[in-house]
């Protein structure tokens, strides 16, 4: 993530002219306000990325190690067993590895989103009150929200790209459309993460809510969203978990893209709409909750 290092002077060419003349005099407040109105979200994203840059090796190790570990365990271990014991038709005519790879990709972004949109949000409002610094600057509240989302989206994107490259190296993405699954995975992460961001921002007392979210929402979604087996193999009474789960929608879409999994076009459209709608809803709610809480 070194490339994302915040604020290198050439990141905004428009600013160079003002600086060359008088190096140690700040531009007038009016210009600060204009720039903040235009680029405020990016400024906050820069901040968030700079913080992440401090953990770049950890993040990189996680982004590479996690997929390698999962794909190796599932693709070499479990898949050998599953492939030799099931009819080809069970997983749509592809290997078990190809079947679970899109699911692992989407669940990785959801897991990451579940971390990035919970504790750091609480940190911003309560523990270290990081939001109150930028709040007193020319930035507007919604730009703090947007900037953080931009930074996390970038993180999800890089992570998914690494994940996908490894999946492709395992030969588990035969389709030419496979790489689009990277974008789907990012949207999938946001569709779960942004509503969670709004919820996290509404919490004033930490009573272990985030642990509950992990245990009773993230884990069941991970297990019952058609991740390791097709949703249809679940009893009808449990399938609704998949239907409401962003992970299921993201995974199914990923399967269409990576190995041409056959599903009606309208269903693919539903997946896209559902994910985008959840993300948008979360975004609007998060902005509202942030405005209310910071503006007190």
């Amino acid at each position, binding site marked *: 993530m070194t490339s994302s290092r*915040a*604020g*290198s*002077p050439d990141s*905004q060419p428009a*600013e*160079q002219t*003002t*600086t*060359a003349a008088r*190096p*140690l*005099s*700040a*531009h007038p*407040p*009016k*210009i*600060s*306000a*204009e*720039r*903040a*109105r235009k*680029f*405020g979200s990016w*400024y*906050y994203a*820069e*901040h968030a990325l*700079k*913080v992440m840059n*401090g953990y770049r090796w950890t993040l990189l190790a996680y982004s590479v190690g996690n997929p390698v570990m999962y794909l190796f365990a599932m693709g070499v271990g479990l898949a050998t067993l599953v492939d030799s014991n099931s009819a080809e038709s069970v997983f749509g005519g592809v290997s078990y590895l190809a079947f679970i790879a899109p699911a692992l990709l989407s669940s990785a972004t959801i897991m990451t989103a579940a971390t990035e949109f919970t504790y750091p949000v609480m940190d911003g409002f309560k523990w*270290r*009150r*990081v*939001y*109150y*610094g*930028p*709040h*007193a*600057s*020319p*930035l*507007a509240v919604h730009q703090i929200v947007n900037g953080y989302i931009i930074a996390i989206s970038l993180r999800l994107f890089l992570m998914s790209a690494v994940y996908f490259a490894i999946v492709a190296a395992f030969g588990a993405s035969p389709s030419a459309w496979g790489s689009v699954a990277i974008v789907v995975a990012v949207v999938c992460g946001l569709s779960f993460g942004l509503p969670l961001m709004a919820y996290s921002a509404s919490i004033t007392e930490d009573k272990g809510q985030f642990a509950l979210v992990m245990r009773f929402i993230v884990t069941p979604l991970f297990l019952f969203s058609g991740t390791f087996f097709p949703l249809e193999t679940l009893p009808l009474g449990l399938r609704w978990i998949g239907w409401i789960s962003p992970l299921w929608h993201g995974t199914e879409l990923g399967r269409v893209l990576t190995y041409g999994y056959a599903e009606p076009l309208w269903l693919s459209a539903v997946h896209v709409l559902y994910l985008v709608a959840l993300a948008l809803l979360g975004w609007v709610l998060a902005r509202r909750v942030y405005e209310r809480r*910071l*503006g*007190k």
Partner: protein
Amino acid sequence: MPNQTIPNYVISADRLSKHYGDFVAVDGISFDVPQGESFGLLGPNGAGKSTTMKMIGGVSQRTSGKLTIMGLDPEQHGPEVRAHLGVVPQQDNLDEELRVRDNLLVYGRYFGLPMSYLKPKADELLEFAQLTDKAKAKVDSLSGGMKRRLTIARSLINEPKILLLDEPTTGLDPQARHILWDRLFRLKESGVTLILTTHYMDEAEQLCDRLVVVDKGQIMAEGSPARLIREHSTREVLELRFGSERNTTVAADLAGIGERLEPLPDRVLIYTDDGEAALEQVTARGLHPITSLVRRSSLEDVFLRLTGRSLVD
């Protein structure tokens, strides 16, 4: 764009109020601050000082009244108003995951300031805040006083003409406070308008040209520290301690000495222009306090006089 005329006052508040539900935090206060003045809001915790600061800082909406900063209404021109200000909040909110210098750089970016300005400026401010050798340190390794100085350095990154300081030295040891006062005094000398809240009378006396005494969301008095003391107190105060049981009972025997008598649980205060003479009168009446002290009147006495309560820590 808002009108571009140069305002007479950098800050102007007219019957400014803020309610939280039924609770009235700020109750119709009015004041004007000319450029370059060091203006203080003195009052106990919960008096409405911080709420007033948040409204001036353009981060909290008022319930009623008028407020302009550099001629601009912070609710209509939030980014413009905030671009004029440097803000030192009551609680430090530095990014502890970043290093000391990076905190300044990141903050400067919020003002759209380019790195070619920010890098030398950050070094200059670190020097001003006596933190040069900590530039690469993690923020959480700093002492309370250092964090405070870093917060002040951060607030200066955009070269603001108005600096808002909410309880700048609360929680610091005396030495750290004096270092901070020295830095603030230099800023004042360079022409920066300082707006500060405090519940320390010595801080108000040291730093403020003019102040308002605030209690329960209202302004009780206004003026320079010296004028407030002159108007609301006597020149000197005689403090007598007779032991915790006797302080209130002995008050009756002291009647008539000095201009005014203030019996407190731990001591009796006699307000007079000549403390030594008053002490002689006390002993002449056959009263022998355990300790006695003659001192000059302070803002604490003004506050006690105006509100009947002391500025408790």
